[in-house]
């Protein structure tokens, strides 16, 4: 979510599409109901009439998979009726940018298409640059080559008649919904979208969400209270696991997984660090090398040095153009490419598509470790339907995991809030927390590699020091994720001592003098303490439900991302009642501003050269849930006979042997 759960209450119009929030995110309806009581309209668009629809002021059905047509019609409606937020669109989006004249769209195909390779050459689609390499703009939005005019032309086809034909939604319903939602384009009004897997799990998932993002930009709904593009995550820590790189194509903090063509750290950083010649571009990702180097320092500690690229070569690279996602992995397993598999907090023989193929694939393994609360279809695949146990060689190990409440650590909710949880009851029987299992697994693997093995350097060099009194310590991991100063350093005029925690990612360095396991979480555990364990119920001065001292929110405790767009160019809020931030003449008040520089215009209306554009394109990244993910449970388990690298036994964590007779409330 660019915003967060409580903020839904500030909305004037809530569109729920691709989600059945009332059933799957029941608590969200606390805030939906509040918004409705304050006069907000709730719109439910779903092929099926759901419990969400039952609470909606307006419901419309559409054919499954026709969301883009539905939303495209809304874009046309907004543009045709001049309902977009003019100042916002001209100043805060790339609508005024001029596109090269080579960009064309004919017969459903964009220019540069190679039908043999089935690929686009996108060179002709680029922005026109001035002599300094800064994109040319027309803030009046009238030039035919502006993004705005091109968009107008592109969406001209999406008239309600055509859209109705594609979606099956009656034209009258389309018009009613378009008019109601587009009314939030008025200054001071906010509309929000709540979506979930009804959008992400389509093959056009990314495009569904991008289309809605365009609507939100046109209506000036990004960065404001009660607005945003809000992905409702399916489990309490899906956001956390995505942030910490559950997916194959990213490193922690949405850094890129290196490709084989990124042959050195320098080549990797060069490839993925965006450049801008506009002195007023924030271009936050220019700091990319600070984040990547700090992450490597966090992985490899003292053994990572400038001489060995901080251990960059020790990390796996993916082949260019090749995918390693869920389906690809099981495809390879089916072909017998790999021999071992940890099924950790998941049940692929049930949750994977083509479960039969998944089960066949598992027959090709030498070993399978099932880490879960219970035995399941994955751990017992060998006795499933059509299986002949005597002919299956796969050895299956079951590691019983502790449930969420039996262990300490953090979860990150959809609203990006990292919340610390304490241990409640002790783990049952011989079940153990995930952290214990991973910690010990790492120690055991390091022990095995002491005697050699193929490519032992990454394993031997891995910094693996998260034990306290011989036990896995979640606080040590949380601190490592935040990051340390590894030397006495001066950054931005401030002195920091070696061994202290980095106060925020603005202080990270690309020379190896800082570590941070995930730059996005830098600021979560500082010398002031564990920020995610805070529980103050005091609201911020703007009283819009930010509760800034309750838990901690990435990035740098900013509760509403892109909030620099919630104010006019002089820094005064579009919405004076539900304001997010405001410039008081010398500093910002309210939420943590998305970029601390002063407003674009000074009080007298002259441009402030010290300011930066709150453009989205400069730092647009996958904050929200743009990709389908295979599995979203993050639970835990246990290994037997824990040993220190020297062969010494680890002390056992105290567990509850009572059989869990009294675990109620």
């Amino acid at each position, binding site marked *: 979510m660019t915003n967060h759960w409580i903020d839904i209450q500030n909305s004037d119009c809530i569109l729920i599409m691709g989600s059945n929030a009332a059933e799957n995110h*029941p608590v969200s*309806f*606390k805030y939906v109901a509040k918004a409705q009581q304050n006069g907000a309209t709730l719109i439910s668009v779903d092929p099926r009439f759901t*419990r969400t629809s*039952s609470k909606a002021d307006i419901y419309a059905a559409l054919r499954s998979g026709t969301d883009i047509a539905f939303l495209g019609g809304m874009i046309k409606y907004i543009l045709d009726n001049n309902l977009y937020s003019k100042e916002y669109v001209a100043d805060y989006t790339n609508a005024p940018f001029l596109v090269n004249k080579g960009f064309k769209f004919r017969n459903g195909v964009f220019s540069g298409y190679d039908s043999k390779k089935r690929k686009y050459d996108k060179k002709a689609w680029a922005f026109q640059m001035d002599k300094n390499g800064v994109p040319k703009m027309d803030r009046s939005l009238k030039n035919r080559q502006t993004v705005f005019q091109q968009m107008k032309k592109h969406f001209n086809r999406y008239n309600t008649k055509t859209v109705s034909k594609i979606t099956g939604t009656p034209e009258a319903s389309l018009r009613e919904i378009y008019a109601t939602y587009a009314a939030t384009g008025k200054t001071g009004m906010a509309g929000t979208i709540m979506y979930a897997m009804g959008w992400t799990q389509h093959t056009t998932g990314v495009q569904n969400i991008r289309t809605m993002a365009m609507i939100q930009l046109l209506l000036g709904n990004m960065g404001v209270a009660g607005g945003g593009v809000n992905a409702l995550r399916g489990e309490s820590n899906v956001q956390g696991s995505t942030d910490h790189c559950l997916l194959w194509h990213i490193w922690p903090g949405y850094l890129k997984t290196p490709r084989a063509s990124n042959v050195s750290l320098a080549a990797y950083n060069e490839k993925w660090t965006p450049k801008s010649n506009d002195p007023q571009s924030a271009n936050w990702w220019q700091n990319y090398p600070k984040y990547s180097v700090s992450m490597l320092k966090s992985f490899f500690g003292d053994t990572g040095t400038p001489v060995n690229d901080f251990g960059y070569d020790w990390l796996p690279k993916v082949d260019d153009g090749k995918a390693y996602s869920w389906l690809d992995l099981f495809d390879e397993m089916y072909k017998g490419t790999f021999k071992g598999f940890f099924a950790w907090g998941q049940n692929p023989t049930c949750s994977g598509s083509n479960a039969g193929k998944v089960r066949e694939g598992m027959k090709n393994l030498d070993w399978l470790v099932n880490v879960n609360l219970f035995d399941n279809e994955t751990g017992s695949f060998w006795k499933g339907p059509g299986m002949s146990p005597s002919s299956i060689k796969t050895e299956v190990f079951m590691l019983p995991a502790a449930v969420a409440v039996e262990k300490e650590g953090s979860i990150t909710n959809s609203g990006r809030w990292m919340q610390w949880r304490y241990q409640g009851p002790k783990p049952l029987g011989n079940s153990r927390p995930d952290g214990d299992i991973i910690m010990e697994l790492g120690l055991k693997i390091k022990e095995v590699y002491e005697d050699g093995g193929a490519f032992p350097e990454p394993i031997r060099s891995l910094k693996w020091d998260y034990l306290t009194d011989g036990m896995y310590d979640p606080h040590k991991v949380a601190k490592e994720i935040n990051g340390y100063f590894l030397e006495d350093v001066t950054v931005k005029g401030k002195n920091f001592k070696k061994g202290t925690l980095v106060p925020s990612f603005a202080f990270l360095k690309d020379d190896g003098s800082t570590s941070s396991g995930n730059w996005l979480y830098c600021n979560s555990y500082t010398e002031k303490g564990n920020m995610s364990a805070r529980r103050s119920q005091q609201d911020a001065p703007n009283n819009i439900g930010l509760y800034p001292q309750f838990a901690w929110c990435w990035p740098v405790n900013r509760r509403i991302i892109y909030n620099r767009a919630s104010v006019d160019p002089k820094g005064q809020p579009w919405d004076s009642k539900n304001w997010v931030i405001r410039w008081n003449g010398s500093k910002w008040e309210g939420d943590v501003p998305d970029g601390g520089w002063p407003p674009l215009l000074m009080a007298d209306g002259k441009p402030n050269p010290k300011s930066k554009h709150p453009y989205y394109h400069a730092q647009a990244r996958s904050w929200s849930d743009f990709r389908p993910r295979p599995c979203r449970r993050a639970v835990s388990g246990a290994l037997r006979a824990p040993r220190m690298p020297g062969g010494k036994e680890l002390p056992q964590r105290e567990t509850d042997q009572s059989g869990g007779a009294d675990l*109620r409330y």
Partner: protein
Amino acid sequence: MAKSFLIDTTLCTGCRGCQVACKQWHNLPADPTVNMGSYQNPQDLSFTTYKLVRMQEHVTEDGLKWLFFPEQCRHCIDAPCEATAGEPTAVFTNPRTGAVLYTAITKDLPAEEIIESCPYNIPRMAPDGTLAKCDMCQDRVDNGMLPACVKTCPTGAMSFGEREEIVEMANSHLMMARKKFKNANLIDVDTIRVIYLVGFKPELYHGFAMASNAEIGITRHMALQRMFRPFKRAGAQLMRG
């Protein structure tokens, strides 16, 4: 004045959190169910199900309406079941909370008659004849906690507190609801402790949502029971001696 509930069905999303919380707090087993083509599950209250979100679909001039009715004992201010039972060791009202409570002694009473006397068709019988229903989470309430169902409700559809506060809240919720639902109303607000706010006619939610006129008046049978109550009580005390 004791306690009351407000159940604002215009805010209920039918999530059934209350149903689950009730089972958990009372440590009750699940009832085996079959798919009946509705999300309502189980189909009815039972000796082991005190709380049930009833679901009804109606096609109106204004489109499809899917109505949710989180049903439970209404804890009548003057409970017909208590009068019919006429046995305070089996069915009695807790004066502190107003909860109408059943004990294991209900086994010795004519269960069918007691069930029949309930205008809302709430009590359910075990095979051995014992009766059970919602107990207003007496143990929780006596310890300053909210009933489990109210505590778990995510949308604010359920509230619990001192009766005068709840009645006041019901009226203010009603004013709010009428902006959107012109037929919104409170059900039997003067005679029961579980006040339902409905957006549509009560009978659209459930046949027993509201007490019918015939049932709400005191029947001849109940009047007789009342007359004999003091004697029965004295008799019971003598028996216990």
